[in-house]
């Protein structure tokens, strides 16, 4: 029987085989071969693609290279979303490898945030963590940590160091013994069919009577269209880290074990594949 702790490792070490191809209109001095890479599901595009950038820049002139950005089937990829979320939401029903197109010009200002440096990724990551703790613990746990603890969380993610990261992150997964869970669950639900980028609301993990709320309870409350009607056909997949957890799973357990390193549950609602 798998230990709950093993789930944490499986989530952390999830990878997506990806093929990066240079956009055909980029000006090259020599042929740029596609570049293959296993992307960590829990990380961010601009954090793990240095090698991709170097590879394609070798085939281009310095003056033709501007800020790098990525696109999948015409959709600019938001670097500030975790890689696993982007894949589940946009490409989970397609065959592997994930085919991503690399651009070095015409940055889509209206769609993408700029990512001037790794510091921007760190700032964004820490901002998400802070927000998650505001929901879980009224920011008490994260504010009590020292700067070096915050640094350790970031370095753990950046250097793919599970133990380094969880040595500190475990504190963010604790709750007072008299409670049965966090104050509110940090979650975001994404669907490509809506204009709104995601749904985020206040939702408690425990009901007034002490019963643990489930994933199904959450969806019924904040995104009922995601669920199939009682006797109807299943239209959507509710996906986290590439899997469909049972709707009866307690939300508190999901938050402790299937959150991304930013401590959010990033949930994708995608159409049920028809094969």
């Amino acid at each position: 029987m798998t230990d709950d702790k093993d789930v944490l490792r499986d989530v952390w070490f999830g990878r997506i085989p990806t093929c990066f191809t240079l956009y055909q209109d980029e000006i090259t001095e020599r042929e740029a071969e596609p570049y293959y890479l296993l992307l960590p599901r829990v990380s961010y595009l601009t954090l793990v693609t240095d090698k991709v950038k170097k590879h394609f820049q070798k085939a281009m002139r310095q003056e033709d290279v501007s800020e790098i950005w990525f696109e999948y089937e015409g959709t600019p990829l938001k670097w500030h979303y975790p890689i696993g979320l982007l894949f589940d939401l946009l490409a989970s029903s397609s065959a592997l490898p994930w085919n991503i197109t690399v651009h070095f010009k015409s940055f889509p200002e209206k769609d993408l945030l700029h990512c001037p440096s790794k510091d921007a990724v760190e700032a964004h990551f820490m901002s998400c963590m802070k927000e998650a703790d505001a929901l879980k613990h009224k920011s008490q746990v994260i504010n009590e940590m020292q700067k070096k603890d915050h640094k350790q969380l970031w370095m753990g993610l950046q250097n793919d160091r599970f133990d380094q990261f969880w040595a500190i992150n475990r504190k963010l997964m604790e709750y007072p013994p008299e409670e049965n869970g966090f104050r509110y669950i940090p979650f975001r639900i994404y669907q490509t069919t809506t204009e709104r980028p995601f749904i985020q609301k206040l939702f408690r993990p425990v009901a007034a009577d002490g019963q643990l709320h489930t994933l199904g309870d959450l969806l019924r409350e904040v995104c009922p269209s995601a669920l199939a009607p009682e006797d109807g056909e299943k239209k959507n997949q509710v996906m986290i880290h590439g899997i469909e957890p049972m709707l009866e799973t307690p939300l508190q357990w999901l938050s402790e074990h299937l959150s991304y390193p930013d401590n959010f549950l990033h949930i994708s609602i995608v159409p049920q594949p028809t094969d």
Partner: protein
Amino acid sequence: MEDEFFGEKSFQHYCAEFIKHSQQIGDGWEWRTAKECSDGYMCKTQFQIKNGTTASHLGTPASVHACLPTEEDLELAVDGSEVMESTTASEVIKYEYHVLYSCSYQVPVLYFRASFLDGRPLALKDIWEGVHECYKTRLLQGPWDTITQQEHPILGQPFFVLHPCKTNEFMTAVLKNSQKINRTVNYITSWLSIVGPVVGLNLSLSYAKATSQDE
């Protein structure tokens, strides 16, 4: 769900009161409801003119149009000014200000973006140039008090944001004080009058009078 001191319902109530007054004085604020949801946000568009080569100090009332100008207004401003020699369309900047509610921090948050009339967006460094010196020091003190680029949670597009996590601190002081002197306060009016000027958004004094007249 609302045991909090400033819940979403309060937010919507204060915004509605604020917009009532805005309509009375033609200040241009309006409410937009989000699709697919019952929530929404307050927004206003404002045009500002960059004087010559340096950005006008956005904190100074003289350089800020408090309400949406007509094309005539813009022409008059251009013709009447001695400072501007040849004002072209590229020197007029369109600012959009959005006031949203953060359920995570249970406070309002100010989102804004700026672009030239031809659609080119302003970069963070251009925005930064327009922030008055006296605000810059305060903003540079902590990463959590600074202006960053973030995704608008309802529109999904890049906007600039003043980080909300210190809002509770200064608003608690404002609200405690007003309780002491027995004065009603519109949370949104007070909050916006504090954070707005930092990024070029000023409120007419009549907003304050409107609140105390209501009771």
